[in-house]
């Protein structure tokens, strides 16, 4: 299952096209499910390659187009970069001396050196009147988190909410708003499944606590399940294990909450 992405960089924009190029590379690497470091490395390597093309192959004047094709598959991303400038021979680029003194440092060659270190494989060819550079990067494919908080109505009108990844200052508002919406609709029986939550900040804790209070005030309940040990230790530290009912699994939580709801009627 391979996806092919293409970007044609118009030469007349010169170095101004670099941000577009790095964004293209980062998006392709993310689509290939590479880890965050590998995504960063792809951005840098493609940037360095295109910067070199503009500077050396096209000599910064009458810069021609650059064609970037990216072959994306889970766990690997291959970039093919074609230009029609002067033939490039990587063997003629002096290898920068690592640990060279300041006088000996020559800025040229750093880009090529970085590309070779950042990517798993780097190959140059000169064919059909153009330079073709092929660079590949692989990493263990990363799990894709769901794009948003999942909300589901369960039997007994219990509402199941599944946040994901990190609940910090930037992501907690989404959870906060989801909870507020439910409470405003009079849904006071809420189960928050924390299975996919790897981190919670004070903002995330606050969102849960204020929803818990509102549910409790309205003769309902907000319970939690599947909390991972790191997140649980945060709950313990702030004393939240005293407030929240925490269930080991979604099923256990749903049946306990159903019984509790029936007995309250």
């Amino acid at each position, binding site marked *: 299952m391979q996806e092919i992405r293409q970007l044609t960089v118009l030469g007349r924009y010169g170095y101004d096209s670099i941000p577009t190029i*790095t964004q293209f590379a980062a998006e392709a690497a993310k689509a290939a499910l590479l880890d965050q470091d590998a995504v*960063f490395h792809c951005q840098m390597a493609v940037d360095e390659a295109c910067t070199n093309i*503009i500077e050396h192959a096209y000599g910064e004047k009458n810069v021609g187009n650059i064609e970037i094709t990216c072959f994306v598959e889970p766990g690997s991303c291959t970039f093919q970069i074609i230009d029609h400038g002067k033939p490039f021979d990587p063997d003629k680029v002096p290898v920068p001396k690592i640990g060279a003194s300041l006088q000996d*440092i020559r800025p040229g060659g*750093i*880009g090529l050196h970085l590309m070779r270190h950042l990517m798993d494989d780097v190959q140059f060819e000169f064919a059909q009147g153009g330079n073709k550079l092929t660079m590949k990067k692989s990493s263990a494919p990363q799990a894709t988190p769901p794009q948003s908080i999942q909300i589901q109505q369960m039997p007994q009108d219990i509402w199941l909410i599944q946040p994901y990844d990190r609940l910090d200052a930037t992501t907690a508002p989404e959870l906060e708003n989801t909870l507020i919406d439910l409470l405003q609709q009079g849904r006071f029986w809420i189960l928050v499944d924390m299975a996919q939550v790897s981190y919670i900040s004070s903002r995330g804790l606050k969102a849960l606590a204020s929803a818990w209070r509102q549910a409790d005030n309205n003769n309902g309940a907000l319970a939690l399940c599947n909390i991972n040990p790191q997140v649980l230790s945060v709950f313990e530290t702030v004393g939240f294990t005293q407030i929240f009912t925490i269930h080991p699994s979604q099923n256990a939580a749903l049946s306990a909450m159903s019984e509790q709801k029936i007995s309250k009627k």
Partner: protein
Amino acid sequence: MEISVTEMNRATLFTISGRIDSSNANQLGDALNARIDAGTLNIVVDLEKVDYLSSGGLRELVGALKRVKNDDGDLRLCSLPPRIQDVLELAGLDALFQVFETQVLAVGSF
């Protein structure tokens, strides 16, 4: 990229944020060179808020370092995010720059 320049007693502090690549590295070079032209010799560059730095930016830093070293000054770096530290090492430039954990340590080192 944003650059702010603060004159301290011991050194001139450049606080940079955002991305530095070949499309904007010359802005960094111009900012550094303008101060060096005006006689500044001791420079601290705070990279804490920099999330991307390619060889274009490194080249400007090395160029400025060479200029101030010629007159017995120095350009020192501080607060490098881990990925930027990696880039500096991969480029083989980590030995050229004195790198400090914090701004206070870097400025105080002069």
